């Protein structure tokens, strides 16, 4: 009996907590489907009396969201791919190749994790501004500016190195006997065997980049280069006439893809955080 009571109270507490977490999302969804008069009805109404899909059309057409999505996808994919490539190469060098200065270089790589991104934004901005004088494609307000600074991650290299170190040395001997070069060994054997670590890194790189805000805010100038996050921010500034219906609609279609990804790969997500302490 006491056990039943205890279990009941635990479930009650957890349910209340979970509701508090989900409530803002429910409120967002509900508002996104309301007419303007119902949006401002007080006390608030949870279920719209009539579903106003027009809010979504209005939001989608109110700003070039298709373009924003394209930009965000291109940038996040490019950064993820770049991080995996440079990361695998460097992790392989640190884990499996002997050369002078290796340990010192590894320490230098690790030290970069202590440097907050906010510290490098002014100089990086100026570097890109100068590169833009050489070639406009390398300057501010370009894909290059949004991608290049992030295609190497010391944390990712560290994570992959840990995984590469666990592979037995015999594998390499066998591969060399089979006429595999270092690159071939990395590509054909190490990478397939390190899929979990690579997947974790890819997932967090993609999500982190998809959600990033400060850097794209600073380096983008034209509407054509904005990401979804910056686009949504400008949409808020533009919809001054309290169009909360379409604002919430925009928030819904920006949140939706991430939530889907999260629900699909939830397990990897949780394990990735619990195992490594990654913070987006």
């Amino acid at each position, binding site marked *: 009996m006491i056990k039943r009571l205890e279990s009941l109270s635990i*479930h009650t*507490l*957890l*349910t209340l*907590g*979970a509701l*508090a*977490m*989900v*409530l*803002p999302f429910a*409120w967002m969804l509900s508002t996104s489907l309301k007419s303007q008069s119902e949006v401002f*009805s*007080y006390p*608030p109404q949870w279920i719209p009396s009539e579903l106003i899909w027009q809010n979504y059309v209005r939001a989608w057409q109110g700003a070039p969201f298709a373009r924003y999505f394209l930009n965000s996808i291109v940038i996040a994919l490019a950064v993820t791919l770049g991080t995996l490539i*440079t990361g695998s*190469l*460097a992790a392989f*060098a*640190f884990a499996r*190749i*002997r*050369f002078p200065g*290796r340990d010192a270089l590894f320490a230098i*790589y690790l030290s*970069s994790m*202590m*440097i907050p*991104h*906010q*510290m*490098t934004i*002014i*100089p*990086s*901005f100026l570097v890109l501004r100068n590169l833009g004088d050489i070639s406009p494609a390398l300057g501010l307000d370009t894909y290059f500016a949004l991608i290049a*600074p992030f*295609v*190497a991650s010391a944390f990712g*290299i560290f994570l992959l190195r840990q995984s590469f170190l666990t592979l037995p040395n015999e594998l390499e001997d066998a591969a060399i006997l089979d006429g595999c070069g270092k690159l071939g060994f990395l590509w054909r054997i190490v990478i397939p065997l390190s899929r979990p670590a690579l997947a974790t890194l890819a997932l967090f790189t993609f999500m982190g980049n*998809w*959600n990033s*805000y*400060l850097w794209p805010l600073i380096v983008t100038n034209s509407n054509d280069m904005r990401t979804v996050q910056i686009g*949504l921010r400008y949409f*808020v500034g533009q919809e001054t006439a309290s169009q*909360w219906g379409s*604002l919430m609609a925009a*928030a819904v279609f*920006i949140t939706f893809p*991430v*939530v889907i990804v*999260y629900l699909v790969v*939830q397990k990897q*997500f*949780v394990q990735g*955080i*619990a*195992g490594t302490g990654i913070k*987006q």
Partner: protein
Amino acid sequence: MTEHGTRPWINLMTVFPVSLKQRRQWTEWLAGYAFLAPSFIILAVFTYFPVAYALGLSFFKWRIMRGEPTFFGLGNYELLLTSEDFWQAVGNTIYFAVGAIPTGMAVSLFIALLLNRPLRARTIYRTAFFLPTVTSMVAVSVVWMWIYHPDVGLMNYLLNLLHLPSIRWLNDPRWAMPALIILGVWKGLGYNVIIYLAGLQNIPQHLYEAAQIDGANRWQLFRHVTWPLLTPTTFLILIMAVINSFQSFTEFHVMTQGGPIGSTTVIVYYLYQQAFQQFNMGYGSALAIVLFLIILGLTLIQNKMLGSKVHYQ
């Protein structure tokens, strides 16, 4: 070896009489540097060089749109440390951290303790708690702006239900920061819960059994087994949360733009204002250096404490 035979540097080596062993070693070294090159170039251009550049710039006065930098010595640091705005930004950041972190940690530990048992629907709870953490800060900021609406917002509705007066949340200099603190706790909760759960699962079960045999009650179990063994986890979460709150920017930029009357101008927001709205690159760089020193200090404390505390895992 045939694979490398056509490469010019190998050909060059064959001109000089070197042993096969030495040649092998050189190719090995070269491979090591070649594999590091791509990541090293990126880190050099966008991390290491910027650190030096920021340090250099911090000794100059430079408004980017108006002319060239002029040497200013420690002038920027002097301006900074005597500026009321800077100290207000530091104070706001500390207010934000102190408001959000202890509450957030206590609540997340409590939830983790509840979740750390065989429970039906455990995954569903976990999904719910973690949902805010994965969604973008911009999107949830927009939603919370609506929740904090002074006239018809959900938050005031809840207050009214409890017979409390409405608050003008983001428009009131006294309440804008608490509003952002509530959002911060809500957004970060799931992340802390997961770290705490991982910490709890590392505590060996036999310690609880032993304590129970000694007649410990539930509070004593928590006080003398769980809490002390959880110290490294608590410490990890604490330091990461402090570092994160010193770096927070997005919600402030979306929801309040540092206002009303500077009540939510946190350090990074102040840096953004100075460097990218007023284009004071020298002053902004000095700010970046100060921010770096604060975070570096926190990281060093973390490493030191963690290094001495993880031994009983």
